């Protein structure tokens, strides 16, 4: 049985990237793609905890913080799912097998998969938010017996934007996992649910008294999802979210990622929701 690795820094100099090489770059949907990386020069493998992120460096272009989206029990291949929205991520999109990538990390806090043992687990993902949550789901499924009901609620923009569609279908076919997928709008051929992901919460078969929720997606979605969970009776300390802010150093020394008094790179990106109040939802904080 895989043991959970303590989130900690591997590199001695946190600002120096370690050399990795691209094994595969596969397109997921639209502008989203997944990189499979392996350490160059037979270096040590780099264990991580679900929810953590790396700073990926494209030679001469720059760095971007990307959540690790792979299986924490199989760290030999480092998996990142990326959305091409800026100069660095668009450069990453062009990487292919054999290309060099610099990796710093893993950084940040993790989804509390150990604390969730014995509880129902509700995973709510919006858009590319499914990527940072996938490692948590892998971990929970690998240790399925330690958890109560496990529910995955996923919202995407349209059916074409559903991330990890093949895997979602596989998960859906399991008897020990509830998967509900909804889209914001769809053409008539789509037979699935249409509506915001929060609408799935009211009907979802979990016990609010014992549930722990992990939410990842745009901040507005996180806010409405937390409200819907609270309406269902999920206790505030049992709701965890993942946040995003501008990152440069990723080690809490450059000041960029501050959100209130928290540094998202080291106090987060995973936060207990009630600990982000009153700042969460405040304008321009």
């Amino acid at each position: 049985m895989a043991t959970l690795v303590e989130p900690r820094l591997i590199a001695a100099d946190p600002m120096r990237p370690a050399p990795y090489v691209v094994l595969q770059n596969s397109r997921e949907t639209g502008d989203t793609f997944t990189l499979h990386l392996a350490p160059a020069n037979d270096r040590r493998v780099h264990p991580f905890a679900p929810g953590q992120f790396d700073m990926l460096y494209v030679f001469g272009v720059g760095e971007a913080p990307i959540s690790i989206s792979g299986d924490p029990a199989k760290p030999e291949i480092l998996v990142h799912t990326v959305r091409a929205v800026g100069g660095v991520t668009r450069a990453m999109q062009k990487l292919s097998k054999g290309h060099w990538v610099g990796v710093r990390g893993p950084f940040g806090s993790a989804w509390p998969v150990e604390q969730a043992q014995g509880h129902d687990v509700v995973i709510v993902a919006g858009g590319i938010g499914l990527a940072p949550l996938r490692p948590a789901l892998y971990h929970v499924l690998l240790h399925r017996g330690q958890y109560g009901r496990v529910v995955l609620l996923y919202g995407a923009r349209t059916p074409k934007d559903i991330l990890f569609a093949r895997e979602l279908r596989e998960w859906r076919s399991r008897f020990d996992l509830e998967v509900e997928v909804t889209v914001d709008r769809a053409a008539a051929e789509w037979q699935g649910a249409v509506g915001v992901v929060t609408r799935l919460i009211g009907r979802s078969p979990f016990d609010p008294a014992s549930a722990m929720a992990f939410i990842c997606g745009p901040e507005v979605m996180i806010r409405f999802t937390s409200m819907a969970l609270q309406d269902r009776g999920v206790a505030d300390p049992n709701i965890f979210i993942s946040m995003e802010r501008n990152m440069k150093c990723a080690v809490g020394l450059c000041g960029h990622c501050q959100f209130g008094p928290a540094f998202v790179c080291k106090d987060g990106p995973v936060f207990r929701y009630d600990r982000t109040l009153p700042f969460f939802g405040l304008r321009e904080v």
Partner: protein
Amino acid sequence: MAATLHSEVVGVAGAMTAGERMVVDQRGLSALFGVLRERGFRVLGPTVRDGAIVYDEIRSVADLPAGWTDQQEGGRYRLTRRDDQALFGYAVGPHSWKRFLHVPLLTLWRARRDPQGVHIEDGGDGATPRQAFIGVRPCELAAIAVQDRVFLGGPHVDPGYKARREASFVVAVNCGQAASTCFCASMKTGPQACSGFDLALTELLTDGRHAFLVEVGSPQGAEVATALPSERAAAEDLAAAAAATRRAEEGMGRTLETEGLKELLYRNCESPRWEEVAGRCLACTNCTMVCPTCFCATVEDVTDLTGSEAERVRRWDSCFSLEFSYVHGGSVRTSVGARYRQWITHKLAAWQDQFGTSGCVGCGRCITWCPAGIDITAEVRAVRDADERRRETRDDREL
């Protein structure tokens, strides 16, 4: 090892020990330069340049700003002549010691790409220089201690800062007067140096005598002090030093009420005051550049035209710039009011949760060097007033 990293001090028989005091004259002060250089220190201190007292490499006592003082107000800084030849008769200038410890521009590493792969090597320019700081004000000692906590006290230590810090020698100078923009007394960081120095000087200028009371603050300081020509400190020397400190306390130009300050700022994120400040603030980032504790930096990756060489550079940044809070799609803090709020709330409130101290040492530079003369002490007062008015007129709504 600089004293500031350790609180325990061990005395050596026959030599000076911490806490011990002596008096040197100008000759002794001159000798200090030589003693420091002999020990391999680059000597940095105050000197007049371009109408301001800045910190730079100085060779001798002659480079010090003898007979100069500074007149400071919101948005105003002028040097004027004193009617004596005091060497340290000013408050603080636009520079702070962070330019030598948390350097403004630093190459973190260089990389080269060739058919074999990518090779990364240190960007450093060799060994860390030993630096002696002459003229460190008590507020500046506090600022260095604040940055020590940031760069040395967390789970990730900044190796460059650590090396530069360990290779530094600190000669503090107590203040004999305060500027109108000073409020170290409110922040409890001055006007007297208590700790964090190797040596602390107090300038004594009385009845034609020009001397310096020297307090030893560390074993390294003791070792240097022993090499200087000196006399025992007499009671009147101690009295004169105490009088100088009192003058500084009484001349303190501003105050900042720190009672409940963190909670005040946290609950006033929506204060109308931020809109008001936004009407004056130019987001020019002067305040963050001159502030001795501001530490925000950015990391830039640059490459040459061939694309085969790259380097990563760290340089000072400021939360006042629009790009500072950029996430894909746009910046989180687009309005100037939100950026000012971020700066002041971080400095006076969040810093306490992050590092256990206030981020402000009361040096007043941000007031002086703001082109619009925005005054941090006045802004806090205004937020407090607005907060009190709001609480008084609030009906039965809960806080």
